């Protein structure tokens, strides 16, 4: 088993090819010694007596003869204990903050087994983020996976930091709350921004960080989400904590996957991404959730930048099919300096239906959210009409809608990155805005709610 192979037959990009191998396990970790320096790799294909492995630290400096390879027979594992909080790790789970190694009694396989749907607890607990649009219109639920679809240069960083510092994720009980922050291929400046915000909000000692910067090896981008989620699972399901996982940027992950796939000469499907992109992303996203037998939870907030702001691009498209909703940022709103620039129409939370309303938030919440959506969608229609016939020629009711739309964007959506509103405040603001509209325009609300909350301007 512990044979050393002294010759590599082919090196291509991040992959190495070894011939004449008789014993190899699919997915096992190999240790490579390059002129005395240790690197890790993973077997990704076995074909007769040829083994293909990807090297996590990259292949630069390797030649066919200067490296030796040892098969460990083990999958990639990381050692975990509660001491990981406040620490920083690289893509294969090694500490990179100079704080010394983690002493762990147990090591965990980073490819955990899928959660049995029977064992899942359906998420129902509302998380107050203090952001009106999110709380009212696409409520975040503990144990949910809700991605932020952003574009290059949009303010997703600020939004994610705002959610982390404002979210009331822990319940009334004594349970602890921690953040697992995962950087995949982001710039050092962006990384520093997050660290700074965590320090400001005093959460830094409750954050476990996994960092892969833009110039770090591409192969590590593939293992970093898995390492981080294994850590999150440990904290949630063994240490009973509520974990919020913030992962940015999923687009870098998918690009790394594509790079490896094309190096393996696989048949590409859409835009060159491999056909298994959906399954691969699902292995990551589906690790969020809650279990009936455990008290902790994993709430997952992945961030991805849509190439060319295109929501139909395979990355946001497949993500949207797996995650439980999405928060979409809009360049148009951002250009108007509305912050956070959340595009209300395409944003959605699939789990909110069971976590809002009487007993959770307030009885008017579901219908009010529906009404705000439907009225705002009307506003957008009227705006396109106004562009053609001019605002002056609009009917009276349409003019009311225009006022409503303007206030909705300026007051409800654009609350700034440092304002925190309670759910009560957000709902009341929603009703105040609806006051701009005549009562007959409120077709999603019943008379009782209208009597109780509606005040015509």
């Amino acid at each position, binding site marked *: 088993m512990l044979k050393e192979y002294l010759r590599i037959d082919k090196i291509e990009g991040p992959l190495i090819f070894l011939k004449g191998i008789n014993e190899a396990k*699919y997915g096992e970790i190999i240790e490579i010694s390059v002129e005395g320096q240790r690197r890790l790799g993973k077997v990704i294909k076995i074909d007769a007596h040829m083994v293909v492995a990807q090297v996590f630290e990259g292949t630069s400096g390797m030649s066919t003869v200067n490296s030796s390879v040892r098969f460990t027979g083990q999958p990639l594992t990381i050692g975990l204990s509660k001491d990981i909080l406040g620490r920083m790790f690289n893509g294969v789970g090694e500490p990179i903050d100079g704080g010394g190694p983690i002493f762990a009694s147990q090591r965990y396989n980073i490819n955990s087994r899928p959660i049995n749907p029977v064992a899942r607890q*359906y998420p129902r607990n509302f998380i107050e983020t203090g952001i009106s649009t999110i709380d009212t219109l696409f409520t975040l639920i503990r144990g949910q996976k809700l991605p932020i679809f952003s574009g290059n240069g949009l303010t997703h960083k600020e939004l994610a930091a705002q959610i982390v510092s404002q979210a009331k994720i822990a319940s009334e009980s004594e349970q602890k709350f921690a953040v697992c922050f995962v950087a995949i291929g982001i710039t050092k400046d962006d990384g520093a921004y997050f660290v700074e915000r965590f320090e400001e909000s005093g959460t830094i000692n409750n954050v476990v960080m996994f960092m892969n910067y833009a110039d770090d090896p591409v192969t590590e981008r593939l293992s970093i989400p898995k390492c981080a989620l294994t850590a999150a699972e440990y904290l949630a399901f063994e240490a009973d904590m509520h974990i919020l996982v913030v992962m940015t940027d999923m687009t870098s992950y998918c690009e790394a996957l594509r790079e490896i796939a094309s190096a393996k000469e696989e048949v590409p499907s859409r835009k060159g991404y491999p056909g298994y992109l959906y399954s691969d992303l699902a292995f990551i996203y*589906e690790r969020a959730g809650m279990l009936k037998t455990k008290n902790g939870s994993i709430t997952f907030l992945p961030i991805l930048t849509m190439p060319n702001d295109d929501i139909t691009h395979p990355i946001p498209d497949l993500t949207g099919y797996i995650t439980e909703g999405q928060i979409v940022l809009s360049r148009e709103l951002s250009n108007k300096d509305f912050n956070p620039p959340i595009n209300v129409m395409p944003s959605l939370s699939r789990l909110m239906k069971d976590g809002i309303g009487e007993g959770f938030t307030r009885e008017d919440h579901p219908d009010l959210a529906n009404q705000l959506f439907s009225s705002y969608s009307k506003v957008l229609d009227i705006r396109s009409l106004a562009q053609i016939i001019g605002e002056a020629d609009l009917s009276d009711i349409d003019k009311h809608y225009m006022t409503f739309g303007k206030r909705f964007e300026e007051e409800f959506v654009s609350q700034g990155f440092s304002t925190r509103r309670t759910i009560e405040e957000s709902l009341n603001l929603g009703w105040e805005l609806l006051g701009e509209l005549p009562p007959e325009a409120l077709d999603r609300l019943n008379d009782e709610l209208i009597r109780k909350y509606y005040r015509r301007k």
Partner: protein
Amino acid sequence: MKANEGKIIYINGPVIKGSQMEEFKMREMVLVGEDKLIAEVISIDDAIGTIQVYEETEGIELGETVYGLGVPLSLKLGPGLIGSIFDGIGRPLERIDQMNADFIPNGIGLLSIDLDKKWDVAFKPSLGDVLAAGDIYATILESGLVEHRLMMPPALSGTVAFIAENGSHGANEVVMKITDAFGITHDIRMYQEWPVRKARPSKHRMKISKPLVTGQRVFDCFFPIAKGGTAAIPGGFGTGKTMTQHQLAKWSDADIIVYIGCGERGNEMTDVLEEFPKLIDPKSGKAIMERTVLIANTSNMPVAAREASIYTGITIAEYYRDMGYHVAIMADSTSRWAEALREISGRLEEMPAEEGYPAYLPYRLAEFYERAGYVTTLNDQEGSITVIGAVSPAGGDFSEPVTENTKRYVNAFLALDRKLAYSRHYPAINWLTSYSGYVKMLGDWYVTNVGEDALVMRNNAMKLLQEESKLLDIVQLVGEDVLPDSQRLVLEISRILKTGILQQNAFHKDDSFVPIAKQFSMLKVVLHLYDRAKACSELGIQISRIKDTELFERVVKMKYSIPNDYKETIDALIRDIDGYYDALMSEYE
């Protein structure tokens, strides 16, 4: 090395190749490696066999053994299916959870329904009776709603040589012995083993004649699905495919529901598991879980089992159809199944056709949808399978291969529309791009069971909506005010049709399910309002007078204000409409 053992020489994700596999058969079930992972032979090239593995292959070693089982991937069909949840190859997830809490382990073997559980069985035949293939020989109360009918295997007939006493039996017991025409005696147990990829036989196909009543207005009134028919529900993410499928699973009047969560979210299956036992079926007063079988291959479960899950589901559906039940099968989503095909095909390095999908995609889709139908069973009863497949087109673009090919084999196409979903018009089924080929086939049923004018009303409503869409194009350019009153009236009535009829609130106690008679009464109210208003408009009365805000709002909100045992209140609404317009017309005469 034995004839039924091969050696692993290639591993790439769920695809494995073995050598020395000359004697393996296509589609044979095999066990892989020390953990005995379940797998299936998908191609053979000389001595090299290619296998797709239904479990995670991490840790499989070069040179490990592949054991052939000699039979294709099969299911044990018997009592205990109803109310349970299975994975893609028919293993009960509840039992897996008892064996290994929370996460699904590897190498647990081919579990099936609990064969030791005792059931209270009532046998029908006596010694010496002659039974034909498919005949029902015993019944079991499987759940509060379903009587399980034990049947002769589809290929066996003969004389009863032994029959057990009525009472408590487990599925594994020999409860009957049959002597066939050649004098050979066969042991009959209370389960049947059936290969999932093979359709179960029936006597003959019958004509489509009955709708699957769903309690959803956009289906029953506008785009009906037939019992024994096929329907596709395509839609991009967030358009409400799963919500629509759940509504159909909850309320449609099938006897048995098979719900396949194919490559979808784990929490959705949990939602079903938590919600269905609490929901009460309006007809029987029992929980709808008591007629439901769930198949779950969530998106993070092995991809090869996703490919099999569709077949597992439809085989279970056929088994209940053979007992004489009407079964509806919901597959959410067939796109994930097609993607599983593509993924395996890619790993096999097959030449891709459109968008990387294999060239045999249309054939596989047809194979699946063709297992739907309204049939006479082997035991001369009527049974049906209705297939409703959700499709998740990439980027919401309906011109992609899965949607396009599905369209060729289904008769009803319910297109979900992102724009409607954005404005929270649910169900977001676009009435202009959807169609149902069953409207004509079910004409007689509607005349006998709803009323002479049912389809006339439907067509009139459709015409109004069509006209509205043309008018809206004009309104987009010049505004509503410039239209003549007759056309503005069309817009107003269409608005009522859209909010009052087409939109349906799944979370409202009365609106979640609406009896078909009430659906058409509601439609009648709207069309009656239109007729009266139109007559006034023709007299030259201004739209501002015709459109009485309060009256119109009452019509829009009748779905909430009129309970499902409604009769008088709907008549009262019609009287009020008449009263208002009579008064209005008399003013102008």
